[in-house]
């Protein structure tokens, strides 16, 4: 009868790298989904924020782009904001003035997130390194 001592060690040596790769892939995919979810939350919160005026100036007290960007950055995890966070606001009907009744869309784009950059360099465009999420609100 042939001895099987060492067979498990050999199998483990073969399978372990694949297992670790699988776990790392799962972690990264989960991480990617989580960052996407956090970005979507931040965009939704920012759309609400951009739609609501200050009490003292009901018709002109909507937050500026800088204030909305600050709000988004506050809502995102710090490891994400290590990259670049771009926030854009558009309104319909379009116009220079922010007015009640306008539909406002906030688009948050994350780029240059270090981990995603590294992933893209390894896997190509399988996982895009930029994450973009939008949300809308109606100005009160």
């Amino acid at each position, binding site marked *: 009868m042939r001895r099987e001592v060492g067979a498990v060690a050999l199998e483990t040596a073969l399978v372990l790298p694949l297992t670790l790769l699988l776990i790392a892939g799962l972690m990264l995919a989960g991480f990617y989904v989580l960052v996407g*979810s956090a970005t979507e939350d931040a965009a939704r919160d920012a759309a609400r924020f951009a739609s609501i005026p200050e009490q003292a100036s009901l018709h002109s007290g909507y937050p500026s782009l800088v204030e909305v960007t600050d709000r988004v950055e506050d809502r995102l995890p710090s490891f994400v904001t290590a990259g670049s966070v771009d926030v854009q606001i558009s309104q319909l009907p379009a116009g220079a003035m922010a*007015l009640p009744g306008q539909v406002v869309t906030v688009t948050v784009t994350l780029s240059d997130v270090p981990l995603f950059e590294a992933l893209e360099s390894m896997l190509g465009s399988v996982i895009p390194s930029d994450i973009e999420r939008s949300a809308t609100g109606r100005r*009160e």
Partner: protein
Amino acid sequence: MIRGRESEQGAIAILLSVVVLFVLLPLSAAGLSAYVRSGTAAELQRSADTGALAGARIIPLGNTSALPPLTGPLPSAPLDVACTRALAALDSDDAIGDGYASGTVSCEASWIYDPSFVSNLGSCMTSLTGLTLLNPSIELARDLLPALHHPGVQVELSRTSEGPLDTLVPGSAPSAETKQARAIRRFKNAINVPVLRNAFTGQMTLDLNANLEASRTTLLSAINQVGSVLSGIVPVCSGMWSALADDIADLYQPSTGNAPTVDEVIADARSQGTAVMAFVMQTGTIPCLTCGLSIPVLEFVPLCVASQSGSIVTFTSCVAQAEGAFRASLIR
């Protein structure tokens, strides 16, 4: 078969257990928990918004409790309604985290007011009181004051949520989440055309002819002019009328969309059984021996449609339904 110390049976099972217990399970737990918490936070915010809007909409017109210089009885209904509606909304919301909420949900509602307005109003009233000639108009203006500011309701909704696998991970605790929403009362059904009061019957009528409809703009200008005149006499009173003018402008000169006609406002109020908020134009006499002057007074009165014959609409006073004449909007 090998027995004893050299047996390798179960080795893979042990390895798999270690990987599942210490890597895959905590990872899944963390991911799912974050997802659930995100869902419950959004749900909490939506519910707080619903409650604040519902509460602010029913603040009665005559309520000045949110104005510290003019403190009156504090009606609890708007605050009660705010929390009841917020909790009901939370209960009926089908967000993913619903089943993972744990602990007690708490709701706190409170009054809010515009501190800068109140501060200006205090200075304005103090200055006006010094002018003996204007004392009676201050009394007359008290009915108008509640319409000049935007009282509101703030709702704070808190609860704890626990991810689906949190209990399996040592050291993982339910997270407490609090969301706040603030809303102010604003006019919805307002008609700013002259309503005439019959001194004998007490009934009020409105003539809905096209010429009078055109008077909206005139009256809106009149409100602004009253503000300007008052500001000219007493500079600290500047801005007192702006909130009212903003509300009326929102209704009749909206920045987007079309404004409703007076007929539409009245038809809506009639079908809903709610009031329209009307400007009633009256003349107040200053009881002063040396002056004998008459001054025009604008007053807000909640009115219900009693009957309509052609363009003539007859109203009755209906304070009880006044809440239907308001809407609410969120503020920061």
